[in-house]
């Protein structure tokens, strides 16, 4: 079976495409608000000094997301990764 990837699996500089949001309730809506819908391209652009949260470039804005939430955001890795 193919391994499922989430946002925690990409490192600064890597890109991916959103496949599914597994989050529920208010955080689900919050993620939708920042433009994380199926098919959205994201790029990891940095990590905070503590290693968490990470910053992602989403639709032209840089947004920090904690690792617990990244774990619920499933992605497709671009070809060749």
């Amino acid at each position, binding site marked *: 079976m193919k391994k499922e990837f989430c946002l925690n699996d990409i490192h600064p500089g890597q890109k991916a495409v959103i496949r599914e*949001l597994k*989050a*529920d309730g*208010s*955080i*689900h*809506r*919050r*993620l*939708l*608000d*920042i*433009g994380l*819908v*199926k*098919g*959205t391209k994201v790029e990891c*652009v*940095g*990590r*905070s*000094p*503590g*290693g*968490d*949260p990470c*910053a992602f*470039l989403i*639709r*032209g*804005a*840089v*947004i*920090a*997301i*904690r690792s*617990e*939430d990244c774990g619920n955001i499933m992605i497709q890795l671009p070809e060749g990764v």
Partner: protein
Amino acid sequence: MDRERVVAIAGNPNVGKSTVFNNLTNLHQHTGNWPGKTVVNATGYCSTEKFSYKMVDIPGTYSLMAHSAEEEVARDFICFGDADAVVVVCDATCLERNLNLVLQTMEITGSVIVCVNLLDEAAKKGIHIDLDALSKELGVPVIGMVARDGKGIDELLDTLDDMMDSERITVKAVAVCCADDGRRMYDSDGRYRICYPDAVEQAIAILEPAAEAVLEETALQYEKCRIGQRKLKGPGPRWLALKLLDYDSALDEGVRTYLQKDICQELPVREALPRAEKLLAQAGLDQKRLEEEIVSSVMATAEEISRAAVANEKERSDLKDRKIDHILTGKWLGYPIMAVLLMVILWLTITGANYPSQMLSKALFWVQDRLTEFFRYMGAPAWLHGMLVLGVYRVLAWVVSVMLPPMAIFFPLFTLLEDVGYLPRIAYNLDKPFKKCCACGKQALTLCMGFGCNAAGVTGCRIIDSPRERLIAILTNSLVPCNGRFPTLIAIITMFFIGTSKGAGTSLLSAILLTLFIMLGVGMTFLVSWLLSRTILKGVPSSFTLELPPYRRPQFGKVIVRSIFDRTLFVLGRAVMVAAPAGLFIWAAANIFVGDQSLLNYCAAMLDPFARLFGLDGVILIAFILGLPANEIVVPIIIMAYMAQGSILEMDSLTEMRNLFVSHGWTWVTAVCTTLFSLMHWPCSTTLLTIKKETGSWKWTFTALVIPTLAGMVLCFIVAQTAYLFI
């Protein structure tokens, strides 16, 4: 005269919405980047030759789906605020995301004007916006702006006039009302129709006539009771239908007030809703999927429009920002840079405030002497002179001369950091430790606000969504020293630990010590947050997202003016208002005698044994108690009490002050404990009242009072008792 027209000004956070608002109304509404500043609507007025307008600045939001307090306020105003037009301010540097809000607004109302602000910054980043194409795609007037230079404001007013003239805007008549595939893009009132997936469209088609029937009936009723001859200006049937499907309890209330009835109980809706819901269920769209589909459709439309109107020279325009981020939030440099920045700001404040402070106090005490001469000349009784000059005036002079210069330096510096966009990076850097304490990273922002004023910090806690984490942030806010406490800290540190010789080295050393004390306060914030989330506020950290906005070149001139007028004078004004009556009271307490002792000394003597346990003395403790209204007056009270009968001694040099303190038994232990206690004791009364207002509970207000007091007492006790062992 025509009636006043209401115009709502909406927009994402940080797009210069308030600049537009200020330009229009000449008000100095500072909303800034301290998030959550506008959680209420600010209003201002302006008029053109044709109309007079009431401008309403609504909170900055990314969407109108109402997931936070700000969004709810914004959406309720756009939906039910009876606005004649809505101006949506957009950021040209990331238009696509801003279009999200534009489209959501256009779904609700047809009278929208889009302002594309920050065109200069976009041009610098190689982003070009075709305003005509955007206007054609959206079917509403689009105005290019550089609001900070006032460019585009006149054009906006002209467009508003035109729009009011024609009631419904004419652009749509010119633009194609049908998309290429023949679908209608607007309803009869000019509201935009976003194209949703088939199943959703079918469900809407079932509900829309029902919603329309209810709306028409309501409009008829309104006309009958002459509530309004005008049309209902809020949302139309299509939007209501959509919201009936995507149920939201917060909106329910608003719709009920708008229509004065429960729409779900109306016959047509009651009949149609189950059918529509069944259809959605058959298509496999539960609440969550439906939400996703709706958002996706809006986003897709925004993407399409932005493709037609935005041209990017470069593939990436943010590389410079990423490089800066790499340093400021880097693994090795992130924390040290924060500490150094804090130190530099404190050093600049201490050094810079030194001379003006002395000059001010010389001048003000010169005035005091003249006042004294005047009172003597007039033959005024001694008690009147004592009360007004030695009591009220002297405390005022102290507060002004000690507080004004540091604030006039600290606030602008802080506002600069805020303007550049560094504050969110602090929250980003500090999120991990806050998460470890089961708190929210945004607490770092409210903590920073606390440096200015704890009451402001407490209000700022509204930006934290989770109620538990918000309470933690509120309860711990006064553990960082506010501007009212800085002068006390600086004075004591300089007097006792540095020596009073002048020079850059001296002030650097006091800056370092002060930074350490502040870090201790921050450390206590973490510790207390951690303890709270283990005990009375148990819970897991909730998720949150934080935007790191692009760095901006700060507007130096405006920053200085704005921070001096809006913050410095505001805080100083409050301090003066509190200090004047306090001065009177303290003078009275120092001059009313019980037996052979003044009331002040009598109380101080009573408290003395208790205070000594904590390395303080009775006078210091009573000064802190009397300083409840404002921490600024703590040092003046100590001085007054030590000088007992109010004999005139000019306290314009720290050396004299040190001598006075030492002659009353101060040692380095007293100094350390006083500093610690100043850092951690009960919040000032303004902060306490704010906490009561924000939490709505005396219990939490009391907790907020007990926590820092307890922390301060425990620390002072440990320090004092350990020191006594060795002395």
